[in-house]
């Protein structure tokens, strides 16, 4: 090179080493998360895989560990998700659209934003208290699937709103302008241009929100999830239990066998979670390819 100043060259060597050191450090940090995840999963598999079989998935809970299964809880969780998913999606995405596309950027909007990010940090158990007072008691829904689903909807709503807003904000204005310049109304622009483009990000938010909803325990304990439900709920007004509730209950019983069942329950929950995540990633990739 032209100016091979020996001081600089020496310094360059240290800088290069520093870079390499930090690269290794950052890599190691990334591995921590991955390794813990693996350890966690292995630990659970080791404890639970032995009792995980078809009967476990298809029988109801029982006081006899050898007969106990997860059916009622699986059906309950599916019910809850089936209710929570559309509600959160519609309300969350609509809120995000309103805030991002319609609301004037004034003090009120900022206040609403602050409110939403604050809600994202409100402990889930507090939502449980709200759900009990409002849905179970106030609306007279009782300790039902609907009351629980509504509670969880409120709980995860901020997650999907924040993610969807990010997604909407990342749609370039040039696309909106192109649409307006063709005489499209605001809603046509949003519906036909902005939303499709923001869809992958919205999906990510939805999945994060639903993952959270699927695994919640504390608020459902307060809203009134049952520990022993030996039937499949038939409508949204029915009594329910969910997988995490069942896991929690099993871990609190004296018999060692129930703890194994709890681990098997955790495996089922994780499988459900991973399926949901995989679905999200597929959707995300599918739509990302197009744009």
């Amino acid at each position: 090179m032209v100016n091979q100043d020996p001081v600089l060259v020496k310094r360059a060597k240290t800088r290069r080493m520093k870079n390499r050191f930090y690269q290794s450090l950052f890599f190691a940090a990334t591995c921590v998360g991955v390794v813990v995840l693996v350890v966690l999963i292995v630990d659970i598999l080791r404890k639970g895989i032995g009792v995980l079989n078809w009967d476990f998935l298809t029988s109801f809970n029982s006081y006899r560990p050898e007969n106990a299964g997860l059916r009622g809880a699986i059906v309950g969780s599916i019910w809850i998700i089936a209710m929570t998913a559309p509600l959160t999606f519609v309300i969350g995405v609509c809120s995000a659209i309103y805030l991002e596309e319609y609301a004037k950027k004034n003090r009120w909007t900022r206040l609403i934003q602050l409110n939403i990010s604050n809600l994202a940090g409100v402990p889930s158990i507090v939502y449980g208290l709200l759900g009990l007072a409002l849905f179970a008691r106030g609306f007279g829904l009782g300790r039902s699937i609907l009351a629980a689903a509504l509670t969880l909807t409120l709980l995860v709503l901020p997650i999907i709103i924040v993610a969807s807003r990010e997604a909407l904000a990342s749609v370039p204005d040039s696309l909106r302008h192109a649409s307006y310049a063709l005489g499209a109304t605001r809603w046509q622009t949003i519906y036909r241009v902005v939303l499709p483009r923001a869809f992958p990000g919205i999906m990510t938010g939805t999945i994060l929100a639903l993952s959270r909803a699927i695994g919640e325990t504390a608020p459902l304990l307060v809203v009134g999830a049952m520990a022993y439900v030996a039937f499949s709920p038939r409508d949204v007004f029915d009594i329910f239990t969910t997988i995490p509730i069942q896991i929690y209950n099993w871990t609190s019983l004296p018999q060692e066998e129930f703890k194994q069942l709890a681990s098997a329950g955790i495996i089922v929950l994780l499988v459900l979670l991973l399926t949901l995540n995989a679905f999200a990633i597929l959707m995300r990739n599918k739509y990302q390819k197009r744009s």
Partner: protein
Amino acid sequence: ACSQSSGTEDGGASEENSEPSEESSGAAGEEGEELTGTVVINGSSTVYPVGMIAAEQFMAEHPGVNVTVGDAGSGAGFEMYAAGEIDFSEASRPIKPEEKEAIKEAGMTPVEYTLGYDGITVVVNAENDFVDHLTVEELKKIWSADSDVQTWADVRDGWPEEEIVLYGPGTESGTYDFFIEAIIGEEEGAALRSDYTANADDNILVQGVAGDPYSLGFFGYAYYAENQDQLKAVPIDNGDGPVEPSIETISDESYTPLSRPLFIYPNSEKMKENPALKPFVQFYLENAKQFVEEAGYAPLDDAHYEELLQKFEEAHVDV
């Protein structure tokens, strides 16, 4: 249209049953007639296994009935009772006057049935070889709010100069209240010392005691029974010599003062609306001894259960 107190109207099994519900409830207990409906139980997590056994066995005989059991806690149980949300509450302590008041205000009368006993078991680590028994006085010395016991030597001369690590349920637990009443005394505002390691989950307490060679803890008998390899139960001397907790000593009431009764409070008013409820309560009481034993608690003598049934029939002649 909640299903908590539903009869056949919203029970899904009603399609299979062509007969009106009133008739089938009249024929409760008779074989062949299908009973339908839902019974909702909630309350103490200690009594929960008993309720679950009852529910499961009842449903085996009456597939048309759904019995669901919650473990929200005794307090929550009574609160739901007063709110008219449940058919049945379970408790690991007697109902408190204010709870009774609330339920009465809501137009209901809670009737109490004692199912059996849970022996609160004082345990030490399996490796502990110096504790042969503890007197009630010693327990009080260890656990009272103003206790100055720091090491085992402070409890009894000759015991090692090792720090005593205490485990027990949290203040919200029925066991906590009961332990205070039995050991410390009944005066208002009595509390245990606050520097022990508390947890709401007895299983977790088991792990605590099992992991600490110089620990001492107390919790429900069933949790000791399931973990005898890691724990050692401490015989308690209430003046009549040390008595080791066991189903027998708890049942025959020689294990004192740490046996606590378990209760159910079926909701009589709900029986009028819910045809499945009365047969279920009857079934529960008829087989209570067996259920209590199966759940790992100590049953009472047979005479007691006969009394229970009698009390039940007297209370519900009208239903």
